[in-house]
């Protein structure tokens, strides 16, 4: 067992995701006076030697995970801690360079698993940016004072608007295809045509042109919104920001300080206040338990504001978020998760009532959006998710989402075991498909989703079976064996096939830009990452920056 645990321990020091503005190395968050604090400005100034790992230098504002961790943190803090903000602007502290995108040498040194998870995390963060605009009325502007290439442009294109300095040399580009033989996988290809609606023939030209496009052509093709001269650049940026502030629908709420979670990380998991991650390296199974709220959770916006980030809804889901990332990055071998929720259902329903009764309150709304994000991160976690519902369980309302989002649910068939639906299961936390998890679960029959929603009482195992809410209902005698075998079997299957299968089945229903990014774009990208033309000994990604030229196998599939 001890050996197995050591095997599970990561080869690199574990990645930690908690940070705070005073500890940022690569970003500066400030609120320029000229916009009276209504604009948050994130200035990118990547420290060459400040990367997460050794062996590469983050030149030209290129980034690695450490840069994106800070960005994700900053976006959360802007929403919770700076309620006066109405718009966000991205700038660069480097002269004539906005960002060169993800650092290629870092990618070259990274394992496939790390690359995929790095891309996924950056994709999630880009989507946070768009959600911030759609959900909270805080639009964002990319102020490109210099060249934005690859991931640099992909960050820009995740903003609502892009202004590119027209100085005769600053360009936007997606050089991944021509230079590296891979895709602009942080949403670039998808957003070009789906979001900015760049004509697909122009998108084709743009995506094969290593040096990108500048000035007027970039505007004509819809790749940026405006390209003023250097002298007029700041004026154009300020004008657009002022317009964003003026049309913002954001409402002020009390600031909520996102206090440190201070997880107790150890070799086989993490203990937080409400969440426990316990990794059994031998079985390659992790148990992830979320515990019940306190008895006196806030029931009004004022109480929520005074409880702050200690409120269960905020704290438990932030912990869950951190645990998901911990699992993704630091426990690569874990195949499957026992998803558990402990406590009394009534306490969960009590704690979540504020989300229903005060849905229009801006701070409550932010909490809802936070939970939405965490649940999406859960959906996008490439591990088998089996929810286990027993006597101690509290799968009610917001926590029932975890069971509905799982690949399977096992519910113990004895008296006293129950689950509860609530109004929140009706679409408060949509998936990437924009369906609720209940709708996705009952994609074949919408009436069953409706029927489950109107069950107001506790739903016991038999009733849950009738309603179709659970997969299996072993009795007390079978439970232990059934569950054990289910996990053993799961852990024995090909991890690649599992990742692909789960991703296909979980996102039943319509495509959205988000599902295309995590599905189509990422899947192609991850395929290309594995192909000799990219990562073989003579592959373009392998040889980038090296003296030899790539050699392609020109067979098309």
């Amino acid at each position, binding site marked *: 067992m001890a050996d197995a645990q050591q095997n599970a321990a990561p080869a690199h020091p574990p990645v930690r995701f908690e940070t705070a503005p005073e500890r940022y190395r690569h970003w500066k968050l400030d609120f320029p006076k000229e916009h009276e604090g209504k604009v948050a400005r994130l200035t990118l100034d990547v420290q060459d030697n400040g990367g997460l790992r050794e062996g590469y230098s983050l030149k030209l504002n290129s980034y690695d995970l450490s840069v994106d961790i800070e960005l994700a943190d900053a976006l959360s803090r802007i929403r919770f801690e700076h309620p006066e903000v109405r718009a966000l602007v991205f700038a660069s502290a480097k002269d004539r360079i906005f960002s060169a995108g993800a650092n290629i040498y870092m990618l070259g040194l990274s394992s496939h698993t790390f690359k995929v998870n790095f891309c996924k995390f950056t994709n999630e963060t880009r989507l946070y940016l768009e959600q911030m605009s759609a959900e909270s009325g805080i639009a964002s502007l990319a102020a490109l004072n210099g060249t934005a290439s690859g991931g640099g442009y992909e960050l820009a294109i995740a903003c609502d608007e892009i202004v590119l300095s*027209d*100085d*005769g040399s600053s360009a936007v580009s997606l050089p991944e295809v021509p230079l590296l033989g891979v895709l602009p996988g942080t949403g670039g290809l998808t957003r070009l045509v789906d979001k900015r609606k760049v004509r697909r023939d122009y998108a084709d030209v743009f995506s094969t042109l290593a040096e990108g496009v500048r000035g007027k052509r970039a505007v004509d093709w819809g790749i940026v919104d405006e390209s003023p*001269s*250097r*002298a007029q650049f700041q004026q154009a940026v300020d004008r657009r920001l002022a317009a964003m502030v003026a049309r913002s629908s954001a409402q002020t709420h009390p600031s909520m300080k996102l206090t440190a979670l201070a997880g107790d990380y150890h070799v086989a998991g993490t203990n937080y206040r409400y969440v426990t991650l316990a990794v059994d390296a031998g079985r390659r199974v992790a148990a992830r338990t979320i515990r019940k709220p306190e008895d006196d959770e806030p029931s009004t916006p004022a109480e929520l504001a005074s409880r702050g980030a200690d409120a269960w809804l905020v704290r438990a889901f932030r912990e869950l978020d951190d645990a998901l990332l911990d699992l993704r990055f630091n426990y690569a071998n874990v195949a499957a998760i026992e998803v558990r929720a402990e406590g009394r259902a009534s306490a969960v329903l009590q704690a979540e009532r504020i989300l229903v009764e005060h849905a229009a309150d801006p701070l409550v709304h932010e909490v809802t959006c936070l939970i939405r994000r965490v649940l999406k991160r859960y959906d996008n976690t490439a591990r088998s998710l089996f929810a286990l519902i027993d006597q101690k369980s509290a799968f009610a309302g917001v926590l029932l989402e975890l069971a509905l989002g799982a690949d399977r649910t096992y519910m113990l068939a004895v008296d006293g075991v129950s689950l509860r639906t609530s109004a929140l299961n009706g679409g408060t936390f949509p998936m990437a498909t924009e369906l609720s998890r209940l709708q996705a679960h009952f994609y074949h029959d919408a009436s069953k989703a409706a029927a489950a929603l109107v069950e107001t009482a506790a739903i016991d195992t038999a009733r849950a079976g009738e309603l179709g809410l659970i997969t299996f209902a072993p009795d007390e005698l079978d439970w232990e064996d059934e569950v054990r075998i289910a996990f053993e079997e799961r852990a024995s299957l090909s991890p690649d096939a599992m990742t692909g299968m789960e991703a296909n089945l979980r996102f039943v229903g319509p495509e959205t830009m988000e599902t295309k990014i995590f599905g189509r774009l990422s899947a192609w990208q991850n395929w290309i990452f594995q192909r000799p033309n990219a990562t073989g000994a003579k592959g373009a990604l392998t040889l980038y*920056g*090296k*003296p030899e030229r790539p050699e392609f196998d020109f067979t098309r599939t």
Partner: protein
Amino acid sequence: MSNVINSERIPNNVGLSEDKRLQRALEEWQPNYLKWWNEMGPEGFQRDQIFLRTAISVDSDGWANFGHVKMPDYRWGIFLADAVKDRTIGFGDNMGQPVWQQVPGEHRNSLRRLIVTQGDTEPASVEQQRLLGHSCPSLYDLRNLFQVNVEEGRHLWAMVYLLHSHFGRDGREEAEALLERRSGDVDKPRILGAFNEPCTDWLSFFMFTFFTDRDGKFQLLALAESAFDPLSRTTRFMLTEEAHHMFVGETGILRMCDRTAQVMKESGKDHPDDLRKLGVIDFGTMQRYLNLWYSLSLDLFGSEVSSNAASFFANGLKGRAKEDQYEDHRALEGFYTIDRFNEGRWSKDDIPLRNALNEVLRDAYVEDCQRGVDKWNRTIAAHGVSVVLKLPSRKFHRHVGANANLPIDVAGNVIATGSFSAKRDEWLPSESDKAFVQSLMTAPVFDPKQMANWISPPKQGIKGRPVDFEYVRRDA
């Protein structure tokens, strides 16, 4: 319109009269070029008759025709050096294959970028030098300035010819953009740093033509090796003109050294203040200008470690200067050791040779610079003056590459940032140096018999004419 675009007006050996596509492109571009020349070319001398050399063909008597001509009437021509029969690629992964007469699709963007980057420097230097005529030390020097200027204009034509002939619509757009960027302009700066620096006095001009044009020489030598034959032939011909630009710089500084050393000897003074009072430029000031232009020019070679350089070489786009001198033309095996300053100390880094080719080119450049500096020092020594001008460490005052923005002294040691700012004026031209140099150069010398006090006359004139020949006939 098309009567403007003919082989009489535009001397060439590229078959312009048969090439409809090139004619069409030039019809649009040429008027804009003239507009640019009139706006941004030498200011105040466009109606004067200048004793200029005009190339009308590439053979030995055709490339150097001398006569008085107004600059806007100068016949900017398009020339390729003679083709080398059965030329094959001389380096990189495609070594030994026939060179390309057309641009291969896969290298189109890289080649265009190389040509645009080179092309951008040509009009840039004309812009930088446009006011110098008003403070010329003699008509001889004034003419040399204009000769350099018109030839830089021709170099622009040479690059534009390649863009027009081989890069389609993109090439035509890039050719236009070459006329739109402006040296030192905040909105539309020239591409490379040194070409946005002000060059408003003759000491800077001579340093520029010595150091910065010499970067041009080495870039052209490297491009002359290119597998893209039209680029190779174009740059080979440009090199013959470039040699004159460096001659202007080298002899300009040499004459200044001569003059200052002479005054030191005659007056018996050596304190800078005394020498300045005697109207010559002290060697300390010259050394600081040297430090500035040398370091700015070193930056033009790019980063010490460069994947672009490796890929240009591998693909046969850009070689090393005089590739023939090397034995191994693939450069896949060796390493190049560079110094890197990391966490408080220097360490040695072995870089695969192909990735270090910028540094290899820079090595050849440094050596070439040293030869010129040695000549200056011999001139100084001939007067019995013991001052020695020195090239500073190539790590000093860099803004590109491994040592960019590090506080490094002229000897190449990293020092405290504070002590760099404290010592800056010992190493680089100070405001008072600049004010002094400007104060010597407030008025032009237009009398053919005269020479400014701060510079000695040249040993000989141009094309057999005496030094006091009327090289520029002022429009009265």
